[in-house]
């Protein structure tokens, strides 16, 4: 892979982390309301998958969706404005954190209903298939969502119709306070693929290159019209389920173990070891992104709220 692409993957991961940590601060300061579900720790999955697809491909996201939107090319100022409930946000401030969508970027929306994207992405994939394009779709969800009705109905349908979808389980170990070891009786959730006659692959979700390689293979398979793949990325969320969650359900040693596997320093070391980048080049990127997020907050703060007349808009086409 060429340097530009590797550097852009690093940049996307840092953009997500910087955005998320700032959102955390803004929320704590009372500047942002509603529910905030942070993505910190899981950056390698969004970036690995989104780097394996094209601009005109579709993704669908989850309640923990900021990372997916950024990885697909979302602008942090418009995202921040959306979180602030401002008219300049991606969705005029009507959606907020859990409902960011940008159809032009192929982002069919984050979703407050666990697993809901699984059936909807099939429709996007079906439409690509029927319109005769070779677009593929990536559907993000997590271990908790993999226990819902729509996981089973959706993956079965995608399998029989050979829909071009990569179903990505971001297995971060928990669904709210419930550990995945409690909610399922299998070791790797990707094993469920065999029930639907499609490939199931489990990878280290904190290794962006491993995610990228696995996603690339699944995407190529989908583009060859061979159907969907179930890709499980094992990762970890650093913060609570939502901001304010005290995380008493997480063992301390477990947290420490995962912190050692942080996807960002890990990828940074790889880039330095492989002589793709120098430490100072990476520091430059970090600094630039600090500034970008600073500007994003400024943009959000200075943007106006929607006029109350907006309440009545956008119900009907």
């Amino acid at each position, binding site marked *: 892979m060429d340097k530009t692409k590797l550097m852009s993957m690093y940049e996307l991961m840092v953009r997500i982390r910087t955005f998320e940590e700032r959102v955390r601060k803004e929320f704590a300061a009372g500047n942002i309301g509603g529910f905030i579900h942070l993505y910190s720790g899981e950056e390698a999955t969004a970036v690995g998958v989104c780097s394996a697809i094209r601009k005109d491909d*579709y993704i*669908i996201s989850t309640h923990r969706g900021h990372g997916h939107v950024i990885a697909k090319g979302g602008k942090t100022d418009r995202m921040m404005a959306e979180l602030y409930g401002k008219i300049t*946000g*991606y*969705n*005029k*401030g*009507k*959606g907020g954190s859990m*409902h960011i*969508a*940008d*159809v032009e970027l192929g982002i*069919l*929306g984050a*979703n*407050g*209903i666990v697993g*809901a994207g*699984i*059936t*909807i*992405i*099939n*429709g*996007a*994939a*079906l*439409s*690509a298939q*029927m*319109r005769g394009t070779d677009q593929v779709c990536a559907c993000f969800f997590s271990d908790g969502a993999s226990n819902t*009705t*729509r996981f089973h*109905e*959706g993956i*079965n*349908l995608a399998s*029989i*119709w050979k829909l071009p979808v990569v179903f990505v389980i971001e297995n971060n170990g928990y669904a709210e306070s419930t550990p995945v070891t409690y909610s399922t009786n299998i070791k790797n959730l990707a094993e469920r693929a065999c029930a639907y006659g499609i490939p199931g692959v489990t990878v280290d979700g904190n290794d962006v290159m491993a995610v990228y390689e696995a996603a690339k293979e699944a995407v190529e398979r989908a583009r060859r019209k061979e159907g969907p793949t179930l890709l499980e990325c094992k990762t970890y969320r650093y913060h609570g389920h939502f901001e304010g969650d005290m995380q008493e359900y997480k063992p301390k040693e477990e947290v420490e173990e995962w912190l050692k596997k942080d996807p960002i320093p890990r990828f940074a070391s790889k880039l330095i070891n492989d002589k793709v980048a120098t430490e100072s080049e990476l520091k430059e990127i970090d600094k630039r992104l600090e500034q970008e997020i600073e500007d994003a907050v400024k943009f959000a703060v200075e943007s106006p709220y929607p006029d109350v007349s907006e309440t009545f*808009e*956008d*119900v*009907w*086409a």
Partner: protein
Amino acid sequence: MKTVTYMQAFNEAIDEEMARDKTVFALGEDVGQFWGNALGEYKGLAAKYGAERLRQTPISETAIVGAAIGAAATGLRPIAVVMFSDFLGVPMDEILNQLTKMRYMFGGIIKLPMVITSYSGAGFQAAAQHSKNMEGLFMTIPGLKIVSPATPYDVKGLMKSAIRDDNPVLFLLRSVLLAGGLKGEIPEEEYTIPLGRADIKREGKDVTVVAIGTMVHRALACANKLEAEKGISVEVVDLRTVIPLDKETIINSVKKTNKLVIMDEEPKTGSVAAEIAAIVAEEAFDSLDAPIKRVCAPDTPVPFSPVLEKFWMPDEENLAKAIEEIV
């Protein structure tokens, strides 16, 4: 004009729209070549348009409605076929939280031009899980148009409009009219009926009866009888679409007759009838010369036994009694 059944009229609507627009397709259980859905209203279309466009699915209501949403969001015009409206409880999240909220939550950046078709209503001993009307339940969800046609003419014209509409439409076919082979006249040539306009099926001057679906036929029978036997002149307004609700036609009719009876085959509580009564009380109270009457089903699920089901469904006698109490 030609005479067709309710089912043929529906089938023609789909046929013409599929021929006209390549982005229109249907997906659902058994919609393919053999059955054309449980009662057969899609029959013959798979032979004509292929399995690609009459997509038979596994028994997966959640996946059907979800896929239709995704397809609609990305440029197609899907028809999601969910057999009986009672089964709409299965993909309820897709309807309640996705279909009807996405456009709004996303600040208007998408359109969802799709139709859900489903069988609705009691009257053929299908018992409680295959008989429910859903208008009252779904009308509380902003963002969904709701159509419930009573005649072959309306079925065809409204279905064509529903397919062309850029919004989600729930199209409720009356099972008894579909299965019972109700006949009526339709033009030979192409026509559409705009959504959101009620139809005065019979002019009258003493009392307005607002009815929907199967109840329209019962209201017309009752009106003819009251006219012949007692000289009471009943105006029958067929709602046809519940959302958008044609307030204007209802209120104008009430202003003419000064009396209102609403006939709705749903339990009274939280029904379409309740909404119409509230609207007229709020906006046309001064025109009323008598209390508003509602002729509805009891607040119970639909019973099986023919005796009980007949008692459960509002009929001509219930309506005549209500009318005579106020004229």
